[in-house]
């Protein structure tokens, strides 16, 4: 069992990832992530000064399309898949503090 990652680290990352994990999950993930990161240490430890990072295997630049009106997804069909809608829009719980 690795102690590379603390329980506090896991709670912080879970908050960033918007995952409400329970105590068991936080505990287990602290160990599991540590083991996986221990394995990744072979990569972290390499001296790669001067090596350019590769983000994408194709040498692509932005692909643009012509600025023409084209059919889009049907709004009613898209909204039919949403958990909650109102007046043709997605409905969500409040985002801002109550006044």
């Amino acid at each position, binding site marked *: 069992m690795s102690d590379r*990652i603390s329980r506090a*680290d*896991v709670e*912080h*990352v*879970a908050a*960033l*990832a*918007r*995952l*409400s*994990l*329970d105590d068991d*999950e936080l505990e287990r*993930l602290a160990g*599991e*992530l540590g*083991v*996986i*990161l221990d*394995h*990744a240490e*072979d*990569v*972290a430890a*390499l001296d*790669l000064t001067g*090596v*350019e*990072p*590769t*983000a*994408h*295997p*194709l040498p*692509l630049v*932005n*692909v643009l*399309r012509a600025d023409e009106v084209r059919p889009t*997804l*049907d709004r009613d*069909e*898209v909204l*039919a*898949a*949403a*958990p*909650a809608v109102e007046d043709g829009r*997605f409905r*969500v*719980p*409040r*985002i801002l503090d109550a006044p």
Partner: protein
Amino acid sequence: MTASSPSSATGPGVDDAIGIARAVRAGERTARAVVDERLELIAERDPELHALLLVMGDEARAAADAIDARVAAGEDPGPLAGVPVVLKDNLCVRGVPTSAGSKILDGWRPPYTATVVDRIVDAGGIVLAKANLDEFAMGSSTENSAFGPTHNPHDPTRVAGGSSGGSAASVAAGFAPLALGSDTGGSIRQPASLCGVVGVKPTYGAVSRYGLIAFASSLDQIGPFAATVADAALLLDVIAGHDSLDSTSIASGVEPVTPHLGEGVDGLRIGIVQELTEVDGIQAEVRAAVAGAVEVLTAGGAIVETVSVPSTVYGLSAYYLIAPAEASSNLARYDGVRYGLRVDGEDVAEMNGRTRAAGFGPEVKRRIMLGTYALSAGYYDAYYGQAQRVRTLIIEDFRAAYERFDVLLSPTAPTTAFAIGAKASDPLAMYLSDICTIPTNLAGHAAMSVPFGVDAGGLPIGVQVLADALGEPTMFRVAQVLEDGAPAGSGGIAP
């Protein structure tokens, strides 16, 4: 063994895709009869295997009748006329439930259809069913499906591999001659190897990903499963090519592979990748299969030598930083707002957190956490940045190898199918199943698995043929020679 045999040793049969399409186009067999036959087999065998999440019986019968009507009217429905195709359930079909093996999308009906599915239907193919997968394609055994594991048709106590285990098992069980999967680190090739079928990961950008539920976008690629190399070539030629709906699609187009199948390997230079063949824990019979493949290729006139691609030893570590990082970003869209599950909360953040905690399974949570950690302040350069630099080294090492060799060879997976549950509680052991397949995804190249022999327990072994970007025509020539020269009992439909 001659180097120029024009097609597979057996030629088109009654049950392969080429044979079905030929018979349906000629009016000798109806698409409806083909579909009914496969549906019957599914009803008989799938309760045991659980390869499928959804059987589209009514839609498939209606599509088959339409094909038969066109043939009767003197039309040609196309190269896949009447051929049933199974889709991995991370490929969208408008109005048809698509879950990606996750509770968070259970019951979701996409408002659009993947380009590959449109191309199959335009070619006369019939979408028969949606196949089981590891949740969001994250896994190597299909045990991470929220709807339960898929069993290997050759031995139902064993895994089918993953993440496209349902697609591989469907072809191995004869549910359909063709299936589609997606491959981010080996998710087509590894289950193909474990189920004894052909599985192809095309060059990055060769096949449109419009309508594929994203996992790791710089690595994901859709590709075919089939019982024969020629059938895999047929499906690849149908789905490959530029698509303006996918901005990562290669604009120059892709050369068809079928015309090259019979060209043999005489004079080809083939390199055995030392680092991917001498991996820890490799099964002796898998190593012997690679040696057997070398004999077949040498007899066909190829020049075979060992080659070192040194940085591939870092492939697994780099992949398990890059893929989770991209996944953590891609899966941010499952927020309980636009589709799928919602678990209510006092505010948006609480609703998001509760929804994602309830909707994602353990492996998906693990990867989101790993990826978020690798991208977080203070660790970005040490992990994600470093992994991206390793990716550059792997590309450079492959480039050097492909200056000397036309294609490369390795095992597809270190072992044959393992027992269900054997690696379920050890994430790292599971990740090691992809050690031979991952470098191809990091480089954006092509690779495929071809059945080549069985182990002492009768379980299939796969040999991997790797090619440079857009090297599919040469890769398929080699695969065809391997299929023709494979030991008796390789591949085929599981009893």
